[in-house]
């Protein structure tokens, strides 16, 4: 198994930085899958829920869309693209463990794993 590619969503980009950020993520994910690497996108769960800056929320959810689009389109080529929503300050071991699980070529695709309790009692995303 090759080293997975990990894309961590930038924060504080503002609306003006949104286009460049989404396009950059698209390039990096496309390069990763073209090179046979699993790609894991990391965002904060609170940004998925919209608990903060509008641009951060738009980017986190846009990246989730991108993950699902790559997963849909890459089914035949067995692209492994998933998302991990985890809060800043989470233990490195937890992050590494989830990245490893989500990179398994025999595992899930287009999946979102939300680490932490923030999603409980809230809408699915």
């Amino acid at each position: 198994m090759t080293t997975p590619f990990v894309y961590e969503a930038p924060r504080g980009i503002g609306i003006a930085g949104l286009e460049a950020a989404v396009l950059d993520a698209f390039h990096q994910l496309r390069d990763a899958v073209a090179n046979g690497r699993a790609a894991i996108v990391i965002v904060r769960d609170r940004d998925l829920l919209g608990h903060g800056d509008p641009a951060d929320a738009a980017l986190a959810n846009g990246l989730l869309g991108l993950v699902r689009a790559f997963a849909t389109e890459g089914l035949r080529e067995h692209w492994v693209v998933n998302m991990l929503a985890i809060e800043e300050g989470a233990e490195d071991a937890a992050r590494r463990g989830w990245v490893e699980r989500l990179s398994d070529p025999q595992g899930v695709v287009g999946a979102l794993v939300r680490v932490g309790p923030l999603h409980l009692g809230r809408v699915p995303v």
Partner: protein
Amino acid sequence: MTAAAIITGGAGALGQSIASRLGGDLEALLLVDVDQQTLAPVADSIGADHVAVDLASDQAPDILSAALDERGWIPRVLVNNAGVNRDARISRMSDEDFATVVRVDLLAPARLALALGPRMPDGGSIVNVASRAAFGNFGQANYVAAKAGLIGLTRSLAIQWAPRVRVNAIAPGLVDTPMTAGMPENVLSRLIDRVPAGRMAQPDEIAEAVAFLASRAASYVTGQVLVACGGRSIAP
């Protein structure tokens, strides 16, 4: 001050239906689209005013704010309906096509909402027209990312502006418009086969859902996505 609804993409089939439906609920309608020649007759036909502007330009929010001021109108409803698509497989998608869709379908509604939301009165309502495709679609990575981003924006603004202004999204599936009519018949037929309702939506059906979210009937609904896809998003 006159309470107005601003509807972007007003010259298109869905924009026209939304405007016609909202016309009975509000004192004034302002249709917005990029092409003056197609927009003006549509606006005239439903007794609306109009402004032709490229929503992808940085100046668009200021132009529309000034247009409201000139008329003495206050924005009570904003429907961010304008959108484009530039479909291609991921491996073949150009940067220009990717960026254009993100700019029009995500940045433009974001900028407009941020410009007009603070000017809305208590009870103001924003409806963002997203798409069922936001949950994932083949050959539309740009569109999927933009519409999913629009849903994220909807949640964040709903929290920021509650309780004064409600912000919701609608996620239509296939809608019977000139855009879908231009698809190859066999492709369209396969897509319709996946819809439990067995057909595309008519624009006025989506307009009804938009009108509900915009109205006081939805006064306790904010930050939500109404998926109007004929059941496609739950189909096997």
